[in-house]
Structures are given as structure tokens and as C-alpha cells.
């Protein structure tokens, strides 16, 4: 039982890191960033190829995170920036970007999965009958560290204050002289770097392939709906809840249908609360 819970927490941390990236972008720009999966894939491939070229793992991981940030900012500058006034076009553009990014990965690295080796591959933590592989422990640590850093950034710095202001009310923030474009780019940079962290931490438990992030992205969107679009702490809490639910479902019902439990949860939420559990903003999106 505790083992199942620990696995759930692992999944939850992964979902939370991805979902916080989605919700940040949604908060400042109201874009459902489906392309985030593509960012994760490219970051994972970058890590793999840098490590494959002989660099130490830490360098490769940093390269991957940097690549995630760069690609994410690129999607903002090249595409999302132009549809700020047309929120209805956002899902379409996001899916178009996902198509492009995934196929760039497919083109560059081919379709077969690659395995990413880490120095902590062989580590196995054991405590009282519960075992936790090193890669999963590393993911939990990385998630806590990066989300903690994000919390400090959002709550303690003027940049973070500006970003929260933009998320609360774009027009008012613009009127008060907050440079909007910089905030957009910054949100995408942070989201992309979190995507990179997710990629580096998650790829060793699975394998690197162009479609590795699809399931995670879907679950992360459920998390975002759970926590309310645009809410960072909602995303963290929602991530842990969903991770534990999927972990329990996979352990006690059927592991093949793991992400279907997330879907059931999504259906339940949408039936009970069509606007998500925590919506602060009744803005019309349609």
C-alpha cells in the first residue's frame, strides 16, 4: 500500500512539474499549450545527444533544460504572440505547434526509442519494505527543488509580482506599465525550463521517443483542470491527487488503463463543476 502511494507521489510530482508549466502559460496568455509535449520531447533528445557525445550527465541535463526553455520561448515568439487577441484560435495553433515539434524530433532522431542513462540508474533506496529506484527519487527531488524555486520567484521578486499581476488582470497590468511582452516570454521560458526538468527526470524511467510526453501531457491537463486553469498551487495539489489516483488505479485495477483513471476523474469534475474545481476567473473563452 505504501509502495503504491510512493509510486503515486512520483507520478504526482511529474504531473505537477508539467502542469505548473501549462498553468503559468495559461495564466498569463490563456493558451492551452499542447505544444508543451513537443518541448519536453526536444529537451529529452537534447539531453540524450549531449550525453551520447560524451559530456557528463549534469552538463547534458542542463543542456536539456536550456533547450526546453529556448524552444518554449521560440513557440511564443513565432506563433502564440500573434494570436493574443484571438483566443479562439489558440487550441488550433497549439496543436499545430505540437505537430511541428514532434515531427522535428522524429526527423532528427528517428522513431525508435532511446534510453537515457544516468549516474543514479543503479541506486535503489529501501526503507521498511518500500523500495524507490534512484531515478524516481531524483525526479521527486528535482520537482520539489524546481517548484520551490518557482515559488520563491513568484512570491519574493518583482518579476514574480508582475507575473501574478498579469495573470490576475491583463489589461490592468498593462495599464500599470508592466512590460507585457517580457512577461509572456518569461512565462514561456519558465514553463519550458520546467518542461526540461520533467524531461530530464522522467526520460530515464521510460525511454526517449517523439511521443513519450503525450500521456503525461494529457494527465497534466487533467491536473490543470483539477486545480483551475491559471493556478500554480492548484496545479501542485492537483498533480499529487491525480498521481495517487492513477497509481492506485494502476496497482489495483489495471496498469494498462492507467491514464483512463485520470480521464474518469476529469469526467467527474466536469460533470460536477464544469469550470474546474478552483476557477477564479469566469472569463468567456469560447
Amino acid at each position, binding site marked *: 500500500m505504501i509502495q503504491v502511494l510512493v509510486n503515486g507521489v512520483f507520478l504526482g510530482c511529474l504531473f505537477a512539474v508539467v502542469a505548473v508549466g501549462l498553468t503559468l502559460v*495559461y495564466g498569463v496568455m*490563456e493558451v*492551452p499549450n499542447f505544444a508543451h509535449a513537443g518541448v519536453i520531447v526536444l529537451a529529452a533528445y537534447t539531453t540524450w545527444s549531449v550525453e551520447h557525445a560524451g559530456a557528463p550527465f549534469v552538463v547534458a541535463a542542463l543542456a536539456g533544460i536550456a533547450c526546453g526553455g529556448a524552444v518554449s520561448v521560440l513557440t511564443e515568439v513565432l*506563433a502564440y504572440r*500573434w*494570436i493574443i487577441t*484571438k*483566443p*479562439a*484560435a*489558440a*487550441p*488550433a*495553433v497549439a*496543436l*499545430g*505547434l*505540437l*505537430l*511541428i515539434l514532434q*515531427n*522535428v524530433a*522524429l*526527423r532528427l532522431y528517428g*522513431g525508435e526509442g532511446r534510453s537515457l542513462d544516468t549516474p543514479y540508474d543503479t541506486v535503489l533506496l529501501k526503507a521498511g519494505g518500500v523500495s524507490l529506484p534512484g531515478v524516481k527519487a531524483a525526479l521527486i527531488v528535482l520537482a520539489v527543488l524546481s517548484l520551490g524555486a518557482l515559488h520563491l520567484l513568484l512570491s519574493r521578486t518583482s518579476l514574480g509580482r508582475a507575473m501574478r499581476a498579469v495573470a490576475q488582470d491583463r489589461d490592468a497590468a498593462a495599464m500599470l506599465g508592466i512590460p507585457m511582452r517580457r512577461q509572456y516570454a518569461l512565462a514561456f521560458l519558465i514553463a519550458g525550463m520546467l518542461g526540461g526538468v520533467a524531461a530530464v527526470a522522467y526520460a530515464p524511467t521510460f525511454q526517449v521517443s517523439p511521443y513519450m510526453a*503525450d*500521456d503525461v501531457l*494529457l494527465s497534466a*491537463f*487533467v491536473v*490543470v*483542470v483539477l486545480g483551475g*486553469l491559471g493556478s500554480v498551487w492548484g496545479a501542485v495539489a492537483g498533480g499529487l491527487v491525480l498521481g495517487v489516483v492513477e497509481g492506485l488505479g494502476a496497482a489495483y485495477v489495471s496498469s*494498462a*488503463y492507467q*491514464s*483512463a483513471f*485520470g*480521464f474518469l476523474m*476529469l*469526467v467527474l469534475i*466536469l*460533470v460536477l463543476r*464544469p*469550470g*474546474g474545481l478552483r476557477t477564479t476567473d469566469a472569463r*468567456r*473563452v*469560447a
Partner: protein
Amino acid sequence: MRLPAAARHAGTAAGLAALSVLAYVLLKNVQGDRGQVVLLIVVWTIALTGLNLIQGLGGYPSLAHVSFFAGGAYLSAYLLGKGLPMAVCAALAVGGTMLAGLVVALVFSRTRGQYFAIGTMFFTAVVNLVLTNAAGVTGGPNGRPVDLGFSLDATLVLLAASLGLSLGAFHVLARTRFGDRLRAVREDEDLAQHVGVPTARVKLVAMVASSAFGAWAGVLFAQYNGVIAPSQFTFVQSFLMLVAIGLGGSGRLLAPLVGSAIVIGFTQLIKLGPGISQIALGVLFILVTLLVPNGVLGGITGLWRRVRPGRAGGPAAEPPRVRAKEEVAS
């Protein structure tokens, strides 16, 4: 009411009939890879006509459409395997899928915009998960063969006829009060609700109707193809369907045909190597979304108007493409 309307739209009806005949001739005579392309374009047009209702007229980007397509294909194949006659199988497959469409609509038509896209996308992902894992019924990841229910010739006739008939059905539906209500939902859902449009019911009906088109296309696709597999019904396919409608021009009569021709043409005909054609499609789609929000057909009618300024409606002798422009006016 229907008959005089049909008489007034005789030009469109004749155009669609000609399209059906053309489709039959092409399906009958084009062989090999190109034959497959023609088949896919015809099947997609039938399926996408349904999507054009909910996405084009209603403004709801449904990513569940490929699931309805899969529903028709898999249900008919399964029932045929049980030894039922083909007509019964087809009816049950379409009916069953419409029931699923009703459930999806009940859950997700309560949501808007982004939430709707996310929810329907997840639905498609779960359907694909079931198709891949419930190997006893669906044959698992490698798919399953489909018994021959219709003779090949009958399938071809049905495909060609369904092409014209479904486009015709869309043409009629778009002109009924139902079509107007859907457009009202697209333009401003709150306002529509406020002035008395039963938005929830309209969305529900549109979703169920769209699932019927998708399911019927799936039945025909399975019959022609002879084998179906989960990889034909992934959420990427669902997204490409959305792209096709957007490229063609949301809500326009011929958008499904133009859109599927572009999408299928890009992915099947132009051999740029793996991935490249999809990258090109993604770039093209984003550019069209940004620069020509009304799609290719909308762009053409816009140009046409600029070249020939004058009365908006135009004389009745013009081809269906121009007819579609009335859609924007209303």
C-alpha cells in the same frame, strides 16, 4: 418546407450529384496508392461533414471525432464477426456510436473552449487505449480483419452516394433554424442563451449528429479497407481532422472536401520523408489560422468579392463554392 427549399437549391443539388458521380468514377478507376488517397478523401469528407456541424457552425473544436469514426468501424466489424447481416450491423454501429456521442455530449457540452478541447482530446486518447488493450474484441494493437458485408461494388456506390448526400444534409441543416442557432452559439454563447436559444440542447444535437456522420464513414472505411487498427484512430488523426476543417474554412459547405484533399494530399501524396509532410502541414495550418482565419474557401470568396464588388448573394447560376459565402453573412 423541404421540397421548395430543395427546388431553390437545385444548383447545389446538381453540383453535389455531379460530385458523387465523379467520386464513383475516381474510386472505380484509380488504382494503387492513388486509389487509397481517393478513398481516404471521400471517407474523410463524409466524416468531416459531421465535424463541420459542431466545429464549423458551432465553434466547438471537437477532438473526439476520430473516436466516432473508430466506433463505426470497430462496432460494425465486431457485429459482422458475430454473423449479423450487414445492414443490421451498419445500423447498430451508427446507433451505438451516436449513443456514445450522446454521452460525450452530455459530459463535455457543459464545458467551453479550452476545456472542451482538452476533454474531447482525452476521450479520444482513452478510446485508443481501449482499442489497443481490449484485444479480445478489437484485436489489440495490430488491429483486426473486417468480414466483407457489402460487395466491393456496393461499398463504392455507397461511398460515392454518401459523399453527396452528407454534404447535401449539411447544406440543408445549415439553413434550418438549427443551423442558425449553432451559429449563434459560435458567435456569442451567452448572448444566444440570453435571447432564448436552448444552447445546451443545440450543442447536444450537433454533437450526436456529428457522431452519426463519423460512424457511417467508419463503417464504409472498414468495409473498403478490410482491416482496421488502433493506429488509424489516434488523437493525431483527430487533430488532423480539426486541421482539415480549419484549412478548408469552418462552416462552409465544401470545407470537408477541400480540407481533406489538402491534409490527405500532404500526408499521402507528397513523399518528403517521414515527418516533413506533417511539419509542413503544421506550418501551413498555423499560417492559415493566423493570416486567413476563414480558411482556403473563405480566402477565395474574399478575393472573389474584392475582384467583383457588387451584390453579396450573386446570381443563382454560380457554383456551390460561392453559395457557401452566404454562411458568413448570416
